[in-house]
């Protein structure tokens, strides 16, 4: 999984019928740069089923984790590469021996 | 998959038993965005139409040096072509006859331009990849 920030959305009408009705979001991957979380430069297109919007910080699952987000009776063949698993409100980190909450909004 | 050119073969007497004497090819990915064709060879023998990296791929189709191939990466691809247990993740899945790249499309375009408006009238040329003629579209890019 990785942390990312939703920066955009992708609209498509002509597509594989198995991904009909799925919303595709552009997510910029966030890495740790010292104290702050900054974009690493990598961007991924992820499917969203929980209502993330531009500006949200999200946790994105990829590979078999993404297929588990779109649970189906036999989800080995679910057509998804990356999926939003959680909209992140805060990340708990340790600073100076204490737990500190870093809010993402 | 990646479009690559075969630049050599890898030979060795000592190998893992599961490799089974299969042919390993050294391939270089084609630099699709460079705008160069295979006919552009620099004075020092360097090929600007190819990227620097080298990929060692297992070949079952009998590709020769100088041919263009498609290389797929992944353990599942390996399972589907060679069977599980073969120590590779890069497999040659096709020998390319020709490839066209529209060079005009490799640069920035104004938003809202329809694909049909983008053609500059020069057709991409094609030719047998094995003969070394340029499979990429002609022109100097945008």
């Amino acid at each position: 999984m990785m942390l990312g920030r939703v920066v955009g959305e992708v609209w498509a009408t002509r597509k594989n019928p198995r991904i009909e009705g799925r919303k595709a979001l552009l997510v910029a991957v966030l890495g740790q740069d010292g104290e702050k979380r900054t974009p690493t430069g990598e961007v991924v297109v992820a499917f969203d089923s929980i209502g993330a919007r531009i500006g949200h910080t999200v946790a994105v699952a990829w590979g078999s984790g993404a297929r588990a987000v779109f649970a189906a009776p036999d989800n080995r063949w679910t057509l998804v590469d990356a999926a939003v698993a959680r909209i992140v409100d805060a990340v708990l980190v340790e600073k100076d021996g204490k737990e500190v909450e870093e809010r993402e909004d | 998959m990646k479009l690559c050119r075969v630049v050599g073969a890898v030979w060795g007497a000592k190998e893992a038993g599961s490799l089974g004497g299969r042919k390993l090819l050294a391939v270089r990915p084609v630099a699709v965005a460079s705008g160069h064709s295979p006919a552009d060879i620099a004075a020092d023998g360097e090929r600007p139409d190819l990227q620097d990296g080298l990929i060692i791929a297992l070949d079952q189709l009998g590709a020769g040096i100088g041919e263009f191939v498609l290389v797929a990466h992944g353990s599942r691809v390996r399972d589907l072509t060679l069977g599980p247990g073969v120590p590779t993740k890069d497999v040659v899945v096709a020998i390319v006859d020709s490839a066209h790249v529209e060079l005009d499309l490799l640069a920035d375009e104004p938003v809202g331009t329809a694909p049909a408006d983008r053609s500059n009238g020069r057709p991409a040329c094609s030719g047998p990849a094995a003969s070394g003629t340029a499979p990429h579209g002609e022109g100097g890019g945008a």
Partner: protein
Amino acid sequence: MILGRLVGTVWATKKNPRIENLKLAIVRPYFWYNPSHDVEHVVAVDQVGAEVGQDVLVCVGQPGRWVAGDYRCPIEASVMAIVDRVEIERGCEHAAPGPFALRAQFKPTTLVRVGADEGMTGGEERGGGERGTP
């Protein structure tokens, strides 16, 4: 998934029998995440009928192998959708440095910027008539 532009086509007669009769398209990604090799293109199987010049969504890995009802194709990537429109928050496209950032010189043809900016309302942006700024 990868967002990219379909820039070319590949023809091959000698290939693995499981990928017979599949249309192969060269896609140049606008950006990428964790590529298997450091290359600037992907050859993807096209079953959606995309044309050269269109923006496409490409699935890599296991989902990309599901082609025409058969999941046993030894391929890495396939085109899943033809993109009509990409909305991106104003100011985000250059906020991410690095080799696979949304490159200033190469942006989706269907890109539309959204979000408020000084002197412009959101309504002026939608409609896809804006030129990308470097």
